């Protein structure tokens, strides 16, 4: 088999070259570890724990919305005073739940859990590096995230409750403790936690970018990088540019809250008192927030799309269709992501002319997104598709991404946004396109790379059952939610009985809630499968999906430095699946063209001449430069 041959070639080049590393203590090995694989697992497990908390919250408020008559007294042991004696959820706590669900899912699960896990795990393994450019910064990145997590988690236990002004924390509500109980200590901790979170993201992002640029192995030119790496690189750049802006908006909010400044406050009369602040603008905060907030959507989504590209190509046994177009569309999306933020603000009183400009720019994003969608479909076309759980989730992602993305074209149209802004139509839209689609990317990644992470396989059948229940469940939740939005239901409402126009449609809300509970329960299949397989799963072969990328040439459980002996060299792109004439239906990246004369295209035969040069290089091996 050619994969094995490739490995042997790699070994063949390996000189006797031993490393002597002292045995690491438990602390160095699992806690303050600088190994990218361990850090990735730390991110993954923390992300999963946060996901359990975040999704549970959504189920609680879905019960409140869809089954308003239900008695929640059984939650008293956990929620205590937040459940009234009559078994009703406290309205303030409802807002806190909505807020924390958003914050946790967007930042802690889909940013840290997704990018943090897979950028860390895959970048060195797929570009052929021993580790990240700076293992120490990488470790710091995780521990800043951990600190942010601890602070955010602690805020859940405050007497007054955690932050509760929506995940967008618009001032003045978030700036004035007298406006809402959640704007007191809860908001202080939220802001502190986010500040540390941003530090963590920046440390991670700088590291990802540096590693991809500097530590690619011999022959791994940019046009041979797997699309996963492209997506992680672009994501890191997005984060590096936009997260500091969030930090500044958070800092200014802290000043307004604690030092009496008026960045966001003006002309406020509250609780029988006219505040002295004048001259600030709440709209300024919204501009700053969404300058991060919109790229954040793509920070969440692009890694999922990268993972999907890799998984779909591997399991269709076909090269990804339009490799260059995929990169170009990601770059296009990333660029546009920075100049569309104000489409979240069409009806905030912003100048309508600005609204027109942002509408134009926003709708352009549909074009690169459409290109991605069609390229995925063409990759499936005439493939030989193996439905691994990872593949199922990737196919599901394409469907969710397109279904959710299309309604974005409605919302990006400022005239239509007047009616739909802040209704359930928006909620349905972004949950499909960024929430569920990114979560599917996360699942696809976990199922696909689990064998490399833990050396064991996850159970396929359970994974498939998990997929179908989740996929059907997600659509059952969010398709009806569009109807509720078209009926004009505003979001973040504790109950719908106050208005005649919302005092109907109860069975649809009940349906959504039941579907949400069902989807929630389905996730326990995953949890069981994941944790059980870590310890008891079937032992993984070296390359279970018969994939081309470099990580599958490393040992089943890669040790420190990832490859024994020399780092493999790269001679081709990562998508040589089902190449005409080839013996196997895949040719890993480390197989030189000189070994596959039967399947080479004419221009590839010319590349054989360059192989000697590639082979003789030995840049970038961190172990060699250290010693």
């Amino acid at each position, binding site marked *: 088999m050619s994969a094995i041959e490739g490995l042997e070639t790699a070994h063949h080049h390996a000189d006797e070259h031993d490393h002597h590393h002292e045995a690491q203590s438990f602390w160095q090995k699992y806690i303050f570890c600088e190994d990218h694989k361990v850090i990735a697992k730390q991110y993954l497990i923390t992300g999963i724990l946060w996901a359990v908390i975040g999704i549970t919250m959504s189920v609680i408020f879905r019960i409140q919305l869809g089954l308003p008559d239900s008695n929640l007294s059984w939650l008293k042991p956990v929620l205590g005073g937040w459940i009234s004696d009559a078994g009703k959820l406290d309205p303030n706590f409802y807002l806190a739940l909505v807020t924390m669900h958003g914050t946790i899912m967007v930042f802690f699960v889909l940013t840290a859990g997704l990018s943090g896990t897979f950028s860390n795990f895959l970048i060195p393994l797929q570009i052929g590096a021993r580790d990240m450019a700076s293992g120490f910064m990488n470790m710091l990145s995780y521990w800043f995230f951990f600190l942010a997590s601890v602070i955010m988690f602690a805020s859940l236990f405050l007497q007054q409750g955690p932050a509760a002004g929506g995940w967008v924390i618009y001032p003045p509500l978030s700036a004035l403790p007298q406006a809402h109980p959640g704007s007191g200590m809860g908001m202080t901790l939220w802001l502190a936690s986010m500040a540390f979170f941003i530090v963590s993201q920046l440390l991670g992002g700088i590291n990802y970018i540096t590693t991809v640029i500097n530590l690619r192995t011999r022959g791994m030119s940019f046009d041979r990088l797997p699309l996963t790496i492209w997506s992680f690189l672009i994501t890191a750049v997005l984060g590096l540019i936009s997260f500091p802006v969030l930090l500044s908006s958070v800092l200014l909010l802290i000043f307004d809250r604690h030092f009496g400044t008026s960045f966001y406050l003006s002309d406020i009369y509250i609780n029988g008192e006219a505040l002295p602040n004048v001259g600030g603008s709440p709209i300024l905060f919204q501009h700053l927030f969404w300058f991060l907030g919109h790229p954040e959507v793509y920070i969440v989504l692009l890694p999922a799309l990268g993972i999907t590209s890799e998984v779909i190509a591997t399991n269709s046994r076909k090269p990804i269709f339009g490799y260059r177009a995929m990169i170009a569309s990601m770059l296009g999306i990333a660029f546009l992501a920075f100049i569309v933020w104000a489409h979240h603000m069409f009806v905030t009183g912003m100048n309508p002319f600005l609204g027109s400009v942002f*509408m134009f720019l926003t709708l352009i994003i549909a074009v690169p997104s459409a290109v991605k969608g069609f390229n995925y479909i063409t990759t499936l076309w005439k493939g030989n598709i193996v439905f691994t759980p990872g593949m199922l989730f990737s196919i599901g992602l394409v469907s969710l991404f397109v279904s959710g993305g*299309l309604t974005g074209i*409605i919302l990006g149209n400022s005239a239509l946004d007047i009616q739909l802004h802040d209704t359930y139509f928006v909620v349905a839209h972004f949950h499909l396109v960024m929430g569920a689609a990114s979560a599917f990317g996360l699942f696809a990644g976990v199922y696909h790379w689990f064998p490399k992470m833990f050396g064991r396989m996850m159970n396929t059948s359970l994974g498939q059952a998990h997929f179908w229940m989740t996929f059907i469940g997600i659509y059952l939740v969010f398709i009806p939610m569009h109807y509720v939005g078209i009926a004009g239901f505003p979001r973040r409402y504790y109950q719908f009985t106050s208005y005649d126009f919302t005092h109907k449609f109860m069975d649809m809300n009940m349906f959504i809630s039941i579907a949400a509970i069902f989807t929630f329960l389905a996730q326990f299949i995953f949890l069981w499968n994941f944790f059980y397989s870590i310890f008891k799963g079937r032992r993984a*072969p070296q390359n279970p999906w018969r994939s081309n990328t470099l990580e599958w040439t490393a040992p089943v459980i890669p040790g420190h430095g990832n490859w024994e002996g020399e780092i493999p060299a790269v001679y081709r792109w990562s998508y040589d699946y089902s190449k005409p004439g080839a013996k196997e239906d895949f040719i890993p990246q480390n197989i030189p063209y000189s070994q596959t004369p039967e399947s080479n295209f004419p221009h590839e035969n010319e590349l054989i001449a360059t192989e000697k040069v590639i082979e003789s290089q030995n840049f970038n091996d961190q172990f060699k430069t250290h010693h």
Partner: protein
Amino acid sequence: MYIIIALVALVFIVLTGVVISRLQGVLKSINKTDSEEVVTTGNKFNGAMFIVILIGGAISITWSYLHAREFFLPEASSIHGRRTDDLFWFSMGILTIPFIIVNFLVFFFAWKYQYKKGHRATFYPDNHKLELVWTIIPAIVMALLVFTGWKAWSDITAEAPRDAEVIEITGKQFNWIARYGGVDNNKLGDYNYKLIDAQNEVGIDLSDENSFDDFTNPSEMHIPVGRPVLLKIRARDVLHSVFIPHMRVKMDAVPGMPTKFWFVPDKTTADMRAETGNPKFDYEIACTEVCGQGHFSMKMRLIVDDEATYKKWVSEQATFLSTYPEYLAKVPENLKAKAMKYVPAEAAAPAADSSATSAGGAGASSSLR
């Protein structure tokens, strides 16, 4: 409702059955040894599921849409609202086409090209023509949608016509307060947030003579039918957002930054009661920007009157000064004479020389209400 729950229960049961049958497959495969062959557990089943989802999904979406339609908002009661509604359903119609095409292709291809032993996928890495096609077609469709949307948006947000009825609406935790330009001059007076107190809830500035005949209403807003209404929108404490679902009106209320929205309501409340067959129908104003505990119940009634009824209603309203004559003390001396016109004679004498918070003034105001 029970039908829906039964349907969900059915889905549950079917899926549970699926899981159990899959699990049995798991138990059987536990003893199998590792092999270098492609592992294709359940490939046929999963392929078939995509077709099931395709058909089931098409049926459910069609059915649920038809079912949900009766709960959608009735036809818009404003001119621009019908325009954006038409645009919305037009765009939805267009977008349904790619929605169907893409989901059909994804699911159909997944089923059709599922793994077959000995089969080999087609090596098909790129095609510039195809890429161009699906770059240009979406771009053209987008251009069409953008253009229609942009036209509508610029008309809706254009300056309000001069004859527009100007009404101020102020959001606070947790209700709306409407203020009218008054029974005589129909001009809103100045305001200042520092003048707000328990009675003067929107901070009417009584040093401006236009404020003398202003009146406020904290529970309902009347507007005339058939001519432009310009809402001047303010917030007192935190962000709020004026949402009039039946009029397709929405605009944030921002402390320190007045906003506005104008529209032409063309169906009176009575018209809507006849049209919907609901004698209790009322237009409602809601809040759509989270503002705290009472966010979900910041309701204000909106009554659309015909011109005559509206005029009559306005003329019957008590001005702020007549309700609270003690505020006469805040009127500058040179304008007192003008202001006296809006203060009932018996209340004017004690109020003119007593302070705003005096017991006499307060007593007089409560007796007048």
